[in-house]
């Protein structure tokens, strides 16, 4: 066993509560690492924009070895603070690149499984209308939606999409209303980028596609397929690098790829069409083998109905 003092001190800063899908994955991975005894972990959630820099500095001053967080919307402050604490390693979710000397980045690169869920959904829709409810049209969201749409179109060229952004990361009742509206317009499959969408699907007895986290057990019989994000490979890798003194301000994004186990594709086999599943599994293997690359498209997706 490693002695208490030698444990890596890791802090995380989240701008939203830890229940929020995206953040929950980081939180979960760090909690797991703590459970293994690799690190000691503390975090601050729901940190307001103005307070973000102070929290970063407090952690840096407090002798943290590694600080994990999201630089989105606090990019400038995060990068400035990092520069001032060169002995601390920073791993930040960011749409931009890493920066010397100590600013590493990651992102939820699960466009691959998203594509696969699209293939399942494209076959499953009968009305040929798929409803998609997102938070904001940022790359992290658009990229996955576009991959999903591409996957669906590959197996079903007639499929149409309804796209709504609720302009909030966190308003389930609103997301639910948006989903209801899409059902009214004929959507029979919902792409659940936000909390609340699957609830609408469940209530109306239609199917939903999960994203980032696995909610199948919360909505039995509703979640057809999900593209999951696993932060563990990224976190484990960065902990290893920091512990061994090999930390580099690199892009840890690829550790979210399926090949590294950072993304996975799950299907409720009792709900999915067997042929569609077979096709998707084949495609999954191609991706893992490096034979197929899913396009990265950060454009804002638009309704096609």
């Amino acid at each position, binding site marked *: 066993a490693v002695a208490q003092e030698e444990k890596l001190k890791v802090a995380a800063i989240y701008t939203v509560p830890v229940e929020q899908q995206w953040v929950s994955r980081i939180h979960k991975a760090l909690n797991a690492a703590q459970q293994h005894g690799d690190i000691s972990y503390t975090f*601050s959630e729901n940190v307001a*924009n103005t307070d973000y*820099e*102070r929290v970063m500095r407090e952690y840096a001053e407090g002798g943290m070895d590694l600080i994990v967080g999201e630089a989105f919307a606090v990019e400038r402050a995060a990068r400035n603070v990092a520069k001032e604490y060169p002995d601390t390693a920073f791993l930040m979710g960011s*749409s*931009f690149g890493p920066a010397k000397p100590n600013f590493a980045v990651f992102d939820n690169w699960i466009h691959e499984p998203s594509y696969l869920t699209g293939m399942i959904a494209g076959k499953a829709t009968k009305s040929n209308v798929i409803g998609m409810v997102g938070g*904001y049209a*940022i790359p992290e969201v658009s990229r996955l939606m576009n991959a999903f749409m591409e996957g669906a179109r590959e197996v079903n060229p007639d499929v149409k999409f309804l796209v709504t952004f609720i302009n909030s990361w966190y308003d389930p009742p609103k997301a639910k209303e948006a989903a209801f509206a899409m059902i009214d317009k004929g959507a029979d499959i919902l792409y659940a980028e936000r909390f609340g969408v699957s609830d609408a699907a469940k209530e109306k007895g239609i199917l939903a596609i999960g994203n980032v986290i696995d909610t199948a057990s919360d909505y039995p019989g509703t979640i057809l397929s999900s593209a999951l994000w696993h932060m563990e490979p990224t976190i484990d890798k960065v902990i290893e690098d920091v512990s061994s003194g090999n930390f580099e301000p690199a892009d840890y994004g690829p550790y979210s790829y399926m090949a590294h186990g950072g993304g996975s594709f799950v299907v409720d086999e009792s709900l999915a069409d067997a042929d569609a599943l077979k096709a998707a599994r084949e495609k999954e293997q191609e991706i893992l083998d490096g034979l197929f690359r899913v396009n990265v498209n950060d454009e*804002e997706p638009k309704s096609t109905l």
Partner: protein
Amino acid sequence: MIRFEPREYVSTRRVIGAPVFAALIALALAAIPIWSAGADIATAYVLMVNGAIGSVFAISELLARATPLILTGLAAAVAFRAKLWNIGGEGQLYAGALAAVAVGSGSLALPSYALIPAVLVAGALAGAAVMLVPTLLKVKLGADEVVTTLLLNFVILLIVQMMLEGPMQDPMGMGWPQSEPVLEEAMLPQLIARMRVHAGLIVALLAAVFAAILMRRTVWGFEIRAVGANPSAARHAGIPVTATFVRVGLLSGAFAGLAGVGEVAGLKGYLTADLSPGFGYAGIVVAMLAGLSPLGVVIAAIFVAGVFVGADSMSRALGVSSYLADLVVAMSLLCVLISGLFVRYHVRIGGSRATD
């Protein structure tokens, strides 16, 4: 039954002592949530004080947070003096921030000494313009300003979102709803190297002194106080009531707008829709804690900021839920608010009821 008898004479010791005592009570009460979260109470207090004033960094953070609160506090204080219930500080703050970005992110190529004033003026004007709408609706059409200012907060925030996702979106922002950064030349200088406290603090303090002089020493201030206390007598006495309301509205909005400028051009460098964690609303509390006195606003803002920053830092150091900080702030506000009673009144419990 509780009875309140107004004091004939209120000693300075009481005026200062009561809120201090109340703050201590609030901190004592904070022991309950700290304890319920399973943390050590004594350590918590040490950490809290340290987090608020224990280092240059802490003090800088405290002042950085107090800066917008002073300005939104002033916005409420001057307006409330005239009984113009401006609950729209939040929206005006965002309008100020939006204007600061519009002017400061490249549309004007000016050297620092010209660009900074331009940004400040733009922000103040934008805040003032936003407040002008409810003020005019009130004086011309009799629409209740509590509601109109409150509703405009939402409208402005939506406009900000619209701008951030549309014309003012940072093309380099990867699709994030954020504005282009404010130019280096437009940024308010930092007051301490590598610390966040910025020249916005000076602006805020000047604004407080300005408001204090305006209210106490000028004809306009006299007129504002008169209109606030009794508009019909003021009108009868020949004071231009409508003009006074408009003046107060513009000033109040301008202060809140400046708060937005400080946040954008002093701290963040660009605008996002989550710029303010409710500074506009907190300003109302600050103003009332200060008894609507402009200089009192400075003290109240520093107090509120200190409690927040200290409790926030403490919660982090102890690994207690960071919602504790907001809770301690709320409890302090309520306690200080109540203490005001003991300053103004003898509080008698029971009372001398002769018979029953």
